[in-house]
């Protein structure tokens, strides 16, 4: 049984249907990449899974449990098991790096402080920011802030990590430091759904690539197969444009 099964999920912004029946599944330890043009609904899939964009139809099952996004308890359960990292980092600017990482584990999960803090230090080490625990976000570069956001998401020990264009807001030379950190997580066997335009990175880490356009999944498959020999014209057109260089 799939770890996460998304079945015919729909979502609307006002009258505009942005997800027109999305279905895919992901196994434990797998990495799925959502790719496609801007406005195709990739980010909305992640936002819908986290209960930020209302789901108007379909089913989501996580580890066998049905999630009902109209039910607050069910949304809490989703947020309990999945974590998201945003394009714009969204760190709490009034807190230090350490406080950003420990707030939710301490105040929401009520885990013991000593354990939470040592885990936070381990995670900061993992993303290469062991010396920045007491810094505030405005003292960090974009790449550093994004790595803090990654560590903050991991501090809640999620079963699935959702990455929403985590390198799109970064200067080119900062992209790799974030991708390196994500690569480390991939090597550790973290289950992830990645929205990304970094095709070389996707090809390297993803087990499955899902190509979306216009709120629908056009085609999906293993990265090499999809990138090199897409079956649909739409996918062939898209990849021929972005993989040229």
């Amino acid at each position, binding site marked *: 049984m799939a770890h996460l099964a998304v079945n015919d999920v729909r979502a609307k912004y006002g009258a505009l249907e942005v997800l027109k029946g999305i279905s895919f599944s992901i196994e434990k330890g797998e990495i799925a990449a959502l790719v496609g043009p801007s406005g195709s609904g990739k980010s909305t899939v992640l936002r819908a899974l*986290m*209960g*930020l964009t209302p789901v108007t139809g379909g089913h989501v099952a996580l580890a066998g449990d049905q999630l009902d996004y109209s039910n607050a308890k069910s949304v*809490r359960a989703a*947020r*309990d098991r999945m*974590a*998201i990292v*945003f394009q*714009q980092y*969204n*760190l*709490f*600017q*009034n807190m230090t790096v350490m406080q950003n990482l420990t*707030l*939710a584990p301490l*105040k*929401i*999960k009520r885990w013991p402080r000593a354990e939470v803090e040592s885990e936070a230090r381990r995670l900061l080490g993992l993303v290469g920011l062991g010396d920045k625990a007491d810094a*505030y976000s405005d003292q960090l570069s974009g790449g550093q802030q994004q790595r803090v*956001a990654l560590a*903050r998401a991991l501090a*809640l020990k999620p079963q699935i990590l959702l990455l929403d264009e985590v390198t799109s807001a970064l200067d080119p030379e900062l992209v790799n430091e974030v991708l390196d950190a994500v690569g480390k997580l991939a090597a550790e066997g973290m289950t992830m759904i990645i929205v990304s335009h970094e095709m070389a990175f996707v090809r390297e880490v993803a087990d499955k690539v899902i190509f979306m356009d216009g709120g629908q999944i056009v085609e999906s498959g293993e990265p090499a197969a999809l990138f090199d020999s897409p079956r649909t014209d739409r996918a062939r057109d898209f990849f021929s444009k972005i993989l040229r260089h």
Partner: protein
Amino acid sequence: MNYRFQFGVVWDNLDELFAGALLTFQLGVFAFAGGALIGLVCASLKTYGPWPVRLLVNAYVVFITNTPALIQIYFLYFGLPEVGVRWSNEACLLIGLTLNAGAYLTLILRAGFLSVRVTEIEAGQTLGMSLVQQIRYIIVPHIAKSIYPALANFFIVVLVMGTSVGALIGVDELTGQAINLSSVNYRWLEYFTVVAGMYVVLTFIASIGLALLGRWAFRVKAKIF
């Protein structure tokens, strides 16, 4: 110029000036605190309330910010007794200043409400925060930090400009005391020189206190000098 300064009479009555300064400080603090409470309620209503309530809040803010504080206080002190509402001069001053500060603080606090980043709130939600936790850990600290300088400046405005209006309805705050004392012995120049100095010292102390509080509580990078 053959004016001979005689500060002696001022020094003799210094304790009365200090009493006036203390009253000025108390009036400033209470009017600001009351105004902040009104401002907080009105700013929430103006931002999140239904339209009839927003209209009411707007009317209050527009009316108060577009009329002089002196007129508002005269209305309470000289106007209301005509219809049987009689308050002491100090009460009229405090109520007037509080209502006045409330309108200005509504505008300042509303700017703070509008500046909260939706993205930070979403980050909080996805970490599993309840609404109360979002308000406590994200919204309030953010508002406090972003509007702190404006709040601190406005406190000084209330403290100095606001309270001195009280002299005109016979409240013995610092300006009132200076008028009372100097009209006994006509040492206007000496009294108002000393009182101006006392205002400067009073606002200076308040500024340093506010800057330190801001740095300590909200990481506001306020310059003290």
